[in-house]
């Protein structure tokens, strides 16, 4: 190549680099493509070209270019690191991990590489290793808010909420506007039953980064537990979010009949959603072509069973929404079912692209998604009665009895023998403890001297979390020695503990679901307060399907009165327990076969609606 061309190539690289740094990616793409075309050995240009392609989401091309860079410069730590990031974004998580580990080999002191390794490990659910990687990152570079926020998250996932709080506060001390840290702090607040602060931090984060889908979804989810928000307000927020997702690219005609059904979920595993959905998916798998799109790489025995019952299984973890949407369209899915709503690891971004002509949300999220592209919300007559339909942006369709069917058989467990005094049990997660809850429970304890309250939730064995909750009751004047916390136990023991309390107290406005079913299976009555939205009516739905609705209350004073009444009327309480046990047999709540048939029929009916 002559000097003039070389000079020209250099000039274009410089301008290409400048364009990349100024985020003018299209310009950078054009310039750098020229350079590498005329001088294929220009490694630096190829490297920046790959980064540009990554920014433009042309991940496959980026990966190819970066491989070439590495081939020529096998010890280039930065190149390995960038390669890892691209692989991660392509959903090629194991390869990403290898690339990042290679990067560390050539630059052992890179805090960035440690941080990036940690993020991939988190994606893979290897939380302890992730925690260690992030810790190495902050030891190399203490002034690293991203790594601190990530460490906070990893610590939270490891169950160390106190440390998660410390570390997240560290990130915020360095950068008070750090979205991920604010997000992380909201999880800590939720875990210690401080729903208001949780939502406050999320709203701050959402304002700082309105395009962050995860944070926006978290706002929706936490709102469900706020007793100060009305259902209309929640819907309005959800719809505002939904509109911001933009119009869908595709238009497609509604099919005449359903042939292919897709399920999108991060929870097709040992998880309530996976367990509830399994029999439905299996049954549908017989009649229809079913494809599962799994947005998290966790696999276990339940995953294997579900996999075995469907036509296709696709791992879509971390993959770009358009790519996933293209796959769904290519699979010819007629009805795409969302099992996440605004819960963690949802793929509403895929639904926003309307890859299937009919889209329905069911089970995983107890509320409206707000997404205009979501055609249906599958409910039941209790969680969404006719008069509430306006509160949902989707069209409401209903299972005849309850939106879910118990996958567990009722158990015959020893009854409560609480001689000292009545024992009330709360088995929901503190993220559902609203002010109403503290108020009602404190009132009950105050008016029932000698009674005790037992908490059991995932982290109820953690002393620090316990202290935070006790402080809330202390503030209400309840002596903290009346409150117990159950340690973490196996599933069998779990039901025994539920059976061992006299009466369970549900949360409001975000009621229990699986926890309520577990109580009913164990034969323990649940006092529940229904409200004006799906999330406040799930326990009521189960008890209505079971046919024992004595403990379904309409207002706070009713809830308190019912709890106190039953606490002081053992005959009546026993009668309810007996009826619960007797009602299981033949009730729609555990009639899996019927539920499967009803579900299939409903699916068939959708095109005509």
């Amino acid at each position, binding site marked *: 190549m002559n000097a003039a061309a070389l000079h020209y190539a250099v000039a274009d690289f410089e301008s290409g680099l400048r364009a990349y740094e100024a985020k003018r990616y299209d310009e950078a793409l054009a310039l750098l493509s020229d350079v590498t075309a005329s001088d294929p050995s220009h490694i630096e240009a190829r490297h920046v070209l790959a980064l540009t392609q990554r920014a433009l989401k042309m991940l496959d091309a980026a990966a190819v270019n970066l491989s070439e860079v590495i081939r020529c410069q096998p010890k280039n730590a930065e190149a390995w690191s960038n390669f890892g990031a691209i692989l991660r974004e392509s959903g090629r998580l194991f390869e990403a991990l290898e690339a990042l580990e290679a990067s560390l080999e050539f630059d052992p002191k890179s805090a960035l590489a440690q941080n990036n390794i940690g993020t991939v490990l988190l994606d893979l659910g290897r939380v302890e290793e992730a925690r260690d990687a992030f*810790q190495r990152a*902050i*030891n190399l570079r*203490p*002034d690293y808010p991203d790594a*601190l926020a990530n*460490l906070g998250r990893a610590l939270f996932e490891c169950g160390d909420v*106190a*440390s998660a709080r*410390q*570390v997240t*506060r*560290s*990130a*915020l*001390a*360095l950068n*008070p506007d750090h979205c991920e840290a604010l997000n992380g702090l909201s999880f800590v607040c939720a875990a210690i039953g401080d729903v208001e602060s949780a939502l406050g931090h999320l709203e701050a984060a959402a304002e700082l980064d309105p395009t962050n889908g995860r944070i926006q979804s978290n706002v929706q989810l936490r709102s469900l537990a706020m007793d100060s928000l009305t259902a209309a307000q929640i819907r309005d927020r959800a719809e505002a979010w939904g509109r911001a997702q933009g119009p869908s690219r595709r238009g497609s005609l509604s099919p005449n009949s359903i042939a292919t059904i897709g399920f999108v979920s991060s929870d097709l595993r040992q998880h309530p959603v996976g367990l509830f959905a399994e029999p439905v998916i299996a049954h549908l798998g017989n009649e229809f072509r079913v494809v599962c799109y799994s947005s998290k790489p966790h696999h276990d025995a339940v995953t294997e069973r579900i996999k075995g019952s469907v036509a296709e299984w696709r791992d879509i973890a971390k993959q770009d929404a358009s790519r996933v949407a293209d796959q769904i369209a290519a699979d010819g899915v007629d009805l795409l079912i969302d099992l996440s709503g605004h819960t963690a690891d949802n793929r509403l971004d895929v639904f926003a692209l309307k890859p299937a002509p009919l889209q329905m949300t069911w089970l995983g999220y107890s509320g409206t998604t707000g997404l205009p592209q979501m055609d249906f919300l599958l409910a039941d007559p209790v969680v969404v009665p006719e008069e509430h339909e306006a509160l949902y942006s989707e069209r409401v369709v209903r299972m005849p009895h309850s939106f879910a069917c118990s996958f567990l058989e009722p158990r015959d467990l020893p009854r409560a023998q609480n001689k000292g005094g009545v024992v009330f049990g709360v088995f929901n997660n503190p993220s559902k403890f609203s002010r109403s809850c503290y108020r009602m429970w404190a009132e009950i304890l105050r008016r029932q001297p000698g009674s005790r309250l037992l908490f059991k939730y995932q982290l109820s064995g953690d*002393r*620090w979390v316990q*202290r935070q909750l006790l*402080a809330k009751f*202390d*503030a209400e004047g309840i002596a903290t020695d009346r409150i117990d916390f159950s340690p973490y136990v196996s599933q069998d023991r779990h039901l025994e503990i539920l059976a061992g309390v006299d009466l369970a107290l549900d949360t409001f406005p975000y009621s229990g679901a699986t926890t309520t079913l577990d109580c009913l299976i164990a034969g323990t009555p649940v006092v529940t307060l229904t409200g004006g939205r799906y999330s406040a009516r799930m326990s009521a739905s189960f008890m209505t399907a079971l046919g024992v609705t004595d403990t379904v209350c309409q207002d706070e004073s009713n809830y308190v009165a019912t709890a106190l009444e039953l606490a002081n009327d053992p005959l009546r309480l026993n009668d309810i327990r007996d009826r619960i046990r007797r009602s299981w047999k033949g009730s729609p709540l555990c009639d899996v076969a019927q539920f499967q048939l009803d579900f299939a029929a409903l699916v068939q009916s959708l095109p005509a609606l």
Partner: protein
Amino acid sequence: MSKLLKQAMGNAAALRPGGAAPDLSALIERALDEHQKGNLGAAAMLYGQILDRDPDNFDAQHLLGVAAYQSGNHSEALDLLTKAIKVHPGAADAYSNRSAVFMALGRFEEALTDCLMALQIAPGSPDVEFNAGNALAMLGRREEAVEHYRRALATRPFFVACLTNLGSELLDLDQLEEARELLEKAIEQDAHHTKALLNLGVYYQQIGRPDMAKRYMEEAVKVEPRYSRAHANLSNLALSHGDVTSALRSGLSAVAHGANTTEGHNCLGNVYRAMGMPREACVEFEAAIGADPSATACHSNLVLSMLADPTRTREQIGREAVRYGTLHAPWRPAPPRPSGSPERIGFVSPDFRTHPVGFFLEPLLANWKGPDVVLYSNSRQEDGQTRKLRSLTSEWRDIRHLDSAQASELVRQDGIDILIDLAGHTADGRLDVFAQRPAPVQLSWLGYSGTTGLSQFDALIADPTVIPVAHEDDYSEPIYRLPHSFACLYDLGAPDLDRPKQSAGPVTFGSFNATSKVNSVVVEAWSRILAEVEGSRLLLKNIYFGDETVRQHYARAFESNGLDADRLTFVGQTSREAHWEDIVRADIALDSFPYTGATTALDCLWMGVPMVTLLGEHYAARMAASFIRTAGHPELVTNSVEDYVATAVALARDPVGLGAVRSSLRSKIMDSPLGDAEGFSRDFIGLLLEIWGNR
């Protein structure tokens, strides 16, 4: 021209091969010539021309790098010298020169590697040994630095810079006498060597000869009037003797002429703190940190000064403390807690002596019925109180000269179950040790009145007043509370009360708090009180009121609030006996805010002098309130400045009420939980067990 350059050029001349093309050798000659003359630009151009023709010409590459370094283009110099080394990996000079560039860039590890490489190729060079020593010193690897310095001096015994640096390191290693010898030798060689002069001054300061210290430090600034560090040392020396006037003058000199040294800003910050100017102090400490972000002591000074600053909220203080923790004590997992009960408790402090902490600790230890106690001391000062405390405990360890790794290892070897910090961000604290997380349970108590900001603490021991539940979120540590106050009464050694219950004449208000706590807002409030109580006087007692500059500063402050300065009585440091006499001269004690008194509150109450306090927003702002409430006088705790002024005035106007309060104060305290040291000790140990159990 630098020695190294000369050497490099000499070697270049020697290497100039016969094989080089004739026009190339001419070019090299010219380039060297220009370089020697100091025409770096011209030389660089010529080196460039050589490299155009002979890209692998080591000399040109090497000397071009040196020229770049001399021009201050450090990153360029680094690239060039690296290329030179690639061409000819066996040239000691190139490594040596590159190490200088690394030093300039603050990349001390790499500088060290290059020095060691150079020494491997050409052992024994005193200059390179010296450079290696400097790199190691910057990395805090003192003992290794010393080895290299010694080797340099073995070859070149009168190497002044090396003598000085070795002397400086030995001072830090507490090898004082040898340090002195070396520094004196350096000065013998060069009477104007300012760094040697300063370090010799530091030596005298360390052996307690402030007069000699001052002499040498002043000599250093005489030679170099802009020697910021020397001014800073003079300032600190003066301040430690209560001479704020000199401290201020030296402090201002330390930051004069655009000098931006950590030491300069830090010492001036200390002066402003002593003058009750917390905001100005914070500005200086922030500047000190800006000059060197790794200066943890300055960062601690900042956090501590914020406690006294009326414009800072609890949230801001908490956040800055967390910043400290984040930057200087990154999170690490705690070691597993052994099963069973704790068996060995460690206390870490520089204040096991005549000091509030040393006093408060005594009743706890004297009544201690619990696990073994080990005291880890971070101070050289020992006195009667030290002996008392040592006699009450199992073991004593001096950790003054141990770095954080060594000290943590000692704590681990000692099998400490619970490690208690008694210093926090106050002077000579060892938060660095706690950062290493050597004990399964670590907690903060008493010595530092606020959140440390470190995530390595499992608890901060407080009481219901200093940290109510609603405030907990702004504290990094989980909060545990003793039932009454965070501390109890110690043996004050005070005389019996024998003065009249009602003093004759006009009311005397008294303040016995540190000047660092008496800021302009406090002065304003006190002026209002005195304005409303005709004929009243204000007694102001503290070591720094013995200084003329401080007296004038406060006199002006009161005058600007309309109060005649002749209503003020200033008293400086006195004996302990005279201290009690001064306290009883006051009818009513006025507490400072936001940073309240603690020992002064107890002193006053014990001597029957009621203290009016303002209940503030954070721990340090609520301490006196805690003692006063526990002593049974909640009416003396006010909730606003208005209330504070009104309460003081009302008390002054009610001689009968005042007399009643005064006469009952001592017995009331004795009967209160403050007087129950046994109970306090029991509660404390119980709390330790609870904290242990929750881990």
